């Protein structure tokens, strides 16, 4: 059994590695389709224009330096090798290592995502439980309708409305950015939280609605189960049944649901960053498109994929940890 479990885990990790490899290869072949001479992007358009007319031999030298004269297979090999060492190349724009830039921005995106995921999870489970427990009551209808409506509004629309209300009309929120600058210690943290409030709030709200809906149906399913009925017939108080028997069972399926949202929450935060001028991955990718900064674009896609893969691993791990019944962690067969 134990051996079996290890096999399963090993297989899964292999699966994830395969995923990352596929995305990396996809990235490599995208470069082949890139319009124009890759060298143009390596030296910058202005210099490239000058060099093509004045010193073509310098360009050839540069091409050899970047290995552009070798076969595609050879280039692919070096690409993968460098990837393994964490070398994603350098940004065309400012010649800084791509990985450094991405990691910095990723941390900032996490500042939005992590609190939003946690808040959305806790509030979602609680509100969903309240709705499911009172199924059919007015409170249930109220909560689930509202959740559905918010679920239908895209995050950036919510953000725009939030910006209008809190920023322009009430004037209590900053218009964007991450901090005011020139602060340290407590004042800095306060300032940071103040800037975070609106984007995190909006992100939480849009993710919350989905959690509520999911939790509600999970609760409704759980209530129907035998041991809950048993508990009811044994005369336990509603409160005890809810917190001792229903909630833990109903919340379990929420673990993969919440962790699996990572992909969509990354997308959501990318849209919001653009609106709130939050200098994270979203803005980075958006600007990279504007400047055809391919190494950044591809690196971002790879790193974001790795994030999602890690989130899935976490989900497997949590599931296995919390429920003996699904220790084999078969999330993909849910």
């Amino acid at each position, binding site marked *: 059994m134990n051996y079996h479990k290890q096999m399963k885990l090993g297989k899964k990790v292999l*699966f*994830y590695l*395969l*995923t990352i490899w*596929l*995305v990396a290869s996809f990235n490599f072949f*995208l470069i082949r*389709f*890139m319009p124009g001479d890759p060298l143009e992007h390596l030296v910058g358009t202005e210099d490239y224009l000058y060099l093509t007319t004045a010193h073509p031999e310098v360009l050839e030298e540069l091409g050899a330096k970047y290995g552009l004269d070798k076969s595609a297979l050879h280039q692919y090999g070096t690409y993968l090798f460098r990837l393994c060492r964490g070398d994603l190349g350098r940004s065309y724009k400012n010649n800084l290592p791509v990985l450094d830039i991405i990691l910095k921005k990723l941390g900032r995106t996490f500042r939005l995502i992590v609190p939003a995921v946690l808040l959305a999870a806790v509030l979602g489970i609680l509100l969903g439980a309240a709705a499911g427990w009172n199924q059919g009551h007015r409170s249930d209808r109220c909560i689930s309708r509202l959740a*559905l*409506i918010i*679920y*239908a*509004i*895209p995050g*950036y*629309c919510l953000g*725009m*409305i939030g*910006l*209008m209300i809190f920023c*322009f009309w009430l004037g209590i929120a900053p218009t964007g950015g991450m901090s005011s600058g020139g602060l340290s210690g407590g004042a800095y943290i306060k300032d940071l939280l103040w800037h975070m409030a609106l984007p995190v709030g909006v992100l939480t709200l849009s993710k919350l609605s989905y959690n509520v809906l999911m939790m509600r149906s999970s609760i409704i399913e759980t209530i129907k189960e035998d041991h809950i009925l048993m508990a009811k017939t044994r005369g336990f108080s509603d409160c005890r049944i809810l917190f001792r028997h229903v909630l833990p069972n109903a919340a379990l399926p929420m673990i993969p649901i919440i962790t699996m949202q*990572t*992909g*969509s929450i*990354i*997308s959501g935060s*990318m*849209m919001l960053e*653009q609106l709130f001028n939050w200098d994270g*991955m979203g803005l980075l*990718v*958006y600007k*990279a*498109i504007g400047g*055809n900064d*391919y190494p950044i*674009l*591809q690196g*971002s*896609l790879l790193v*974001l*994929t790795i*994030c*999602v*893969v890690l989130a*899935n691993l976490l989900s497997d791990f949590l599931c296995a940890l919390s429920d003996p019944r699904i220790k084999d962690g078969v999330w*993909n*067969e*849910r």
Partner: protein
Amino acid sequence: MVVLLFVALFAPWIAPYDPWEMSIPFLGPSWEHILGTNDVGQDIFSELVFGARTSLLVGFTASLAITVMGSFLGAFAAYYGGWADRCIMVFINVALSVPSLPLIIVLSAFLKRSVWNIILCICLTGWVGTARIIRSQALRLKDMGFIRNCRTMGCSSLYIIIRHLLPNLKETILTKGMLSVASSMLTEASVSYLGLEPMTSKSWGTVLNDAFRAGGVFNGYWWWYLPPIACISLSAFCFLSLQEES
């Protein structure tokens, strides 16, 4: 929902103006222009009416492709099992791990801008959800009596999948299909809001983007930015409610 379809189908008759026709820019709401005009003097109401077309076009085509592809792959995987199943599962897992919006954005840097490319991008990752659910449901059905009977009667696999397996899953397929219409429409709106759509295409996202870029939001032209938000949200809500009920 019906209203939406109606509007999209009969857009040219409903819209008071050609949404590409230009007159005086930055007009407020009036009887001539119910929702005013934008920065190049196009009627915003007509833009929205025609935007419904784009949104529904993307929503339906993408979700159709997603559903067909997803259910077939799911059913195949479940029916054949073994290597076919494993291969498809690998693809499902890979596609599941790639965040869709970043992928679409990166691809848009390489592809030519057109609505069809956006649909393509949406399909690229969209089918996995459907495939996964169909596969797990089909696994359950596969060993049921009537499927086994068919097999012993010598029906071809394709016949069994199309005539017996999938029809029995039509409720799941339909529900998932509705969901993917909503999500495709939302994705399309996001992409066009980011300005990654062709410049002249009219969609709710582009109207919103124009409103933001051309100062509509700061100058307080609510008639410019609120209606597209309402359109996007309402239509997504429609499909979600449908899915809820079915």
